[in-house]
């Protein structure tokens, strides 16, 4: 347990904003940029913006979740970090579970924070903003889990960020449907399903990502 805690602290030191692997503010800024672009493209139609704004925030969040993926697992595979961990009896699954927590902490809280200025830009009302925030809170763990699985699967390949993004988008559609769908049917069912999806993905991700890393090691 002690080893896992140390691993988590190291991962956080790398991934958090201002961390060693850098670039963690990028999803935050990218998210704001997308939310800012939309009113420019649609025009100053306040009712339209208020009606579609929640969905725009969801799409922006999904796109922003793609950004950190290419540096999430691949560098450690190249450095042999997972080999050294395996020699010390730390399984890939455990390492991936810690990476998942660190990954979520590094982008989701900032994204939730950025939702406030983005909602102001889009002119969202308090009730809608509450549903968007709750939806993102329920959905981002699932996005993080999907992202981790995809970046672990593609870590051994030399393909870069484009493929990870292309893979994440279709797989994230269910989260998007339930999370953004909660905006038009505010009875809480969408949020509950979004959270349920997230829980399943979070439960599966360490094992799937761990298996992918081990396959890359043994191959």
């Amino acid at each position: 347990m002690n080893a896992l805690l140390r691993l988590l602290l190291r991962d956080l030191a790398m991934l958090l904003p201002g961390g060693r692997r850098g670039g963690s503010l990028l999803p935050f800024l990218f998210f704001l940029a997308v939310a800012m672009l939309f009113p420019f493209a649609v025009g100053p139609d306040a009712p339209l913006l208020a009606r579609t704004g929640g969905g725009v925030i969801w799409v922006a969040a999904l796109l922003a979740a793609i950004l950190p993926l290419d540096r999430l697992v691949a560098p450690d595979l190249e450095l042999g970090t997972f080999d050294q961990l395996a020699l010390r009896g730390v399984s890939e699954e455990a390492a991936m579970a810690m990476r998942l927590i660190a990954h979520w902490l590094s982008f989701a809280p900032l994204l939730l924070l950025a939702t406030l200025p983005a909602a102001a830009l889009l002119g969202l009302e308090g009730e809608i903003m509450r549903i968007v925030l709750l939806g993102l809170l329920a959905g981002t763990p699932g996005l993080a889990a999907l992202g981790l699985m995809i970046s672990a699967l593609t870590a051994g390949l030399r393909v870069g960020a484009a493929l990870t993004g292309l893979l994440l988008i279709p797989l994230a559609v269910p989260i998007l449907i339930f999370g953004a769908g909660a905006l038009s049917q505010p009875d809480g069912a969408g949020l509950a399903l979004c959270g349920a999806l997230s829980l399943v993905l979070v439960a599966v991700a360490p094992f799937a990502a761990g298996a992918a890393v081990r396959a890359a090691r043994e191959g």
Partner: protein
Amino acid sequence: MQTVPKLAAHQLACRRGDRILFRGLDLSLAGGEALYLSGPNGIGKTSLLRILAGLMRPYAGSVAREGTIGMVDGRPALDPQAPLGTALSFWARLDGGAASDEKLAMLGLSDLLDVPVRYLSTGQTKRAALARLLAQDAQIWLLDEPLNGLDVQGVALVETLVAQHCAAGGIALVASHQPIALPTSTTLAIVEYVA
């Protein structure tokens, strides 16, 4: 040291892609012994070390290990962006110890602890990987080309470290294309086992 380390392999075979690299390889090492793996590039030295470490599955055969394993290969496993001291202390803490100043001074790393790992030269990075190995206090050393990038003093240092390790009852396997003086002059030529 806790237990007496032992490392044995029985009828090992290794496959990469659809090529069998070697087969029928036996070896047995007890505490205090060192083994030199020789062979040209691509013969399977790294694969053999990784199989012995348990990082790769053998195509056939079995490996019996008793004791903790430390490995140094071409990849330092030290965060390039982190200062050397931070990167080393991560592993040292994970191993339940601390990088001792004495060992760092012996490896010539004392003045480099504030330098990010990515600014280190090839030889310095190799020395850093050796520092990680020393702090681990493992019983079985698997060294894959440990002399790459090291200067003459560095080579002598590795020879001294391996000799000390074996004198303390440890096992060392060294794969290298450069000559290295080991405490016991057993050589395993993988060429003899090529399928």
